[in-house]
């Protein structure tokens, strides 16, 4: 039997704010809606930015992509700050227990040397790629348009910092601080890493924020995460490196979740107009080529003979994903 506690019932005058009623009808709004829609100011700005005097503070022209309603780019995860941090805290707790177990039981010492070496050579320098991802998404958060996009990109930027820090911890577990120095040397001057570093640095000087979104979030992450946290991860597990897989658990989960958000952005933007679709498709083609060039030597180093086949699989999946999003790639 259910018993409803009685409280004094006072009928509210209204369900929510006017702009949400206009968008979603006269009903109670979700916390995501209240915290995201029409939060960024849009129409009236006092001073031209000293760093971009041809535009206003929040300017739709900072990207070539155009939307009638920028709030169409909503986040299917409905992340406002509270939902975001609570989700990440839960995932972090699971990741933490993996690290604890590995450290308490000395599992890292059971990893075969060859696997450990691949992890040190490949996963560790990736922390710098993640830092590039942080900077790109911070840029979008600063100069992008519409709270639904800018808040999600800041969460994404912080996630990249988080992933970089998990990769750092892997280095510390496997080989201590020296491993990080070695990875940095590889990143700076090892031949294997130069195409990737050049690509990441080139992304740091783009000024169209949606272009950064495509190059970084769709293409670079879309190709590299399956390669490293799916295929390479399987190799680790299959060859006695389960402890490494345990330490990259966060990345695998995170990539799956965030891909849904990224897809939703691309799909809606592409469906908006033929111009958007063409531009997004061109960007994907352009950045897919350089990303593949940068990933190929890393795949060969990590996967040896299997590299070509794996890259082929990754590419096929990625192309199918893009096609599903309405892109011509």
């Amino acid at each position, binding site marked *: 039997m259910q018993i409803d506690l009685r*409280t*004094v019932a*006072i009928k*509210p*005058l*209204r369900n*929510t*704010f*006017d*702009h949400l009623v206009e968008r979603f009808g006269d009903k109670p709004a979700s*916390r995501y809606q*209240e*915290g*995201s829609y029409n*939060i*960024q*100011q849009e*129409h*009236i*700005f*006092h*001073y031209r*930015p*000293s*760093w971009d005097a041809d535009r206003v*503070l929040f300017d739709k022209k900072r990207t070539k992509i155009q939307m009638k309603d920028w709030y169409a780019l909503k986040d299917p995860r409905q992340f406002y700050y*509270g939902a975001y*941090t*609570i989700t*990440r*805290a*839960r995932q972090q707790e699971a990741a*933490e227990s993996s690290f604890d177990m590995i450290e308490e039981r000395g599992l890292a*010492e059971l990893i075969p040397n060859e696997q*450990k070496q691949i992890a040190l050579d490949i996963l560790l320098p990736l*922390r710098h790629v993640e830092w590039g991802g942080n*900077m790109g998404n*911070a840029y979008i*958060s*600063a100069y992008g348009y519409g709270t639904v996009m*800018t*808040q999600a990109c*800041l969460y994404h*930027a*912080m996630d990249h*910092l*988080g992933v*970089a*820090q998990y990769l750092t911890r892997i280095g*510390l577990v*496997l080989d*201590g*601080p*020296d491993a*990080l120095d070695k990875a*940095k040397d590889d990143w*700076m001057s090892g031949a294997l890493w130069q195409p990737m*570093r050049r690509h990441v640095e*080139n992304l740091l*000087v783009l000024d169209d924020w949606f272009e950064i979104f495509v190059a970084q979030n769709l293409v670079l992450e879309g190709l590299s995460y399956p390669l490293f946290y799916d295929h390479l991860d399987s190799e680790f597990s299959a060859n006695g490196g389960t402890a490494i897989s345990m330490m990259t658990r966060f990345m695998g989960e995170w990539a799956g979740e965030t891909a849904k958000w990224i897809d939703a952005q691309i799909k809606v933007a592409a469906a908006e107009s033929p111009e958007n679709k063409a531009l997004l498709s061109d960007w994907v083609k352009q950045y897919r080529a350089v990303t593949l060039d940068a990933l190929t030597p890393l795949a060969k180093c990590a996967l040896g003979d299997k590299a070509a086949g794996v890259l082929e699989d990754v590419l096929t999946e990625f192309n199918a994903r893009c096609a599903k999003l309405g892109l011509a790639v």
Partner: protein
Amino acid sequence: MDMQATKKKLGLKEKYAHMTRGLDWETTYQPKEKVFPQATFEGIKVHDWDKWEDPFRLTMDAYWKYQAEKERKLYAVLDAFAQNNGHLGITDARYLSAVKLFLTGISPLEYMAHRGFAAAGRNFPGVGPRVACLMQSIDEVRHAQTQIHALSNYNKFYEGFHAGASHQIERLWYLSVPKSFFDDAFSAGPFEWMIAIGFSFEYVLTNLLFVPFMSGAAYNGDMATVTFGFSAQSDEARHMTLGLECIKFMLEQDPDNLPIVQKWIDKWAWRGIRVLSLVSTMMDYMLPKRVMSWKEAWEIYFEQNGGALFNDLAKYGIKVPDCIAQCTVDKEHQSHQLWLTLCTHSHAMGLHTWLPDAEEMDWLSAKYPNTFDKYYRPRFDELRERADKGERFFANTLPMLCQVCQIPMLFTEPDDPTKICYRESEFQGEKYHTCSDGCKHIFDDEPEKYIQAWLPVYQLYQGNCWPEGTDPTAEGFNPVAKYLEWCHIDAKDTGDYEGSSDQENFAAWRGVATQNV
């Protein structure tokens, strides 16, 4: 290769350094100037970014963990508040004018801070400040959202909230005061942003904003506001540390930075103090249950705390801003002059005002023995007499605004509290008016910037603030009524509290909640 894992336990500082600073690198495929194009144009010289002391030392896993705990608690309280008609626990629905001012004047600034710190975070060549700024940026989006969520319940029951915060801050004349402040800071470079917001606003002036609001909420039974205030407090402590670190860093890096930083401190101290005028009215007039007077708050949080800070900064050559002498005069007058203006213009506002009653005026006399009875009580008495005769006075026109702070020209001369202070500057053949020596000085230093100000009253009279399709030649055309329509302000949102539907509903609902009727 020897693959033995190193067993040495890392210290917190060392571990944090690996987790953040170790991630960055000096780019070689792209020049630093292209990666960080905003690092130099303000003239600040930085020789060694590694000298930056990281104020937070939080890694992301710890950040998520602590912040998620706070969020869980906060939303549990907000849910309970909504479920149990917490909105009836406040002292009086008059109090909600302060909350309306907070939601429309402050919450949008939190959002601007989120964007501004994201920009600063992307622009500093040093990894330490980049991470610290990003952490603050994400905290600020938290604050905007938790405030909206906490106050959304009031919107369901009371007038004045429904238009939404951004809609109002873009349009309402008194809200262009805080809006122009953040637009000003965000349109400057990243270093000035850090002095304007990180240091002046978050470090020097923040107590004058948040302590009165949150204590006011506690005194007046507003548990929703108290809860988000407490929940934000630990974030704010981090932000204050960042503000202090950034100024010390700039001053320690190069002696040439001192005059630039001093100029920004002078500017942003005065800009900030003008914005806080709105808070002074809240403390002295809008809280049914008062916490302390504005003058007392000023003396504690600015004169004592701020004074100690400036003593510390003296070793770098920083001087107390000249405008502070004016503040010593203003603290006696500011809230009264501004509230009188708000009372006589409340037909064009998104909140209610009221004339202080006898008990409240006695409180003001006691708190302001030098000025209240002499200059302000007689004016409130006269307004009260008129109101009692059914002729509550509202000004027929909207006030002239200061070109810099955008507050109506209502403050008085430093040496004569009966004479309105006007200052005039000429730029490119046009005359511009400011409300004080402080604002005139700011204008004269950057006239190209301040002539761009979007002054709502002037825009209204130029016909730019009416709904699309408005015909100003139509019979009986009322520009202010059309302006309010454009602001999405309804008749119920505005005017005197006496006789308002907020007053009526609150009384009726309280009756239902506390009596057997």
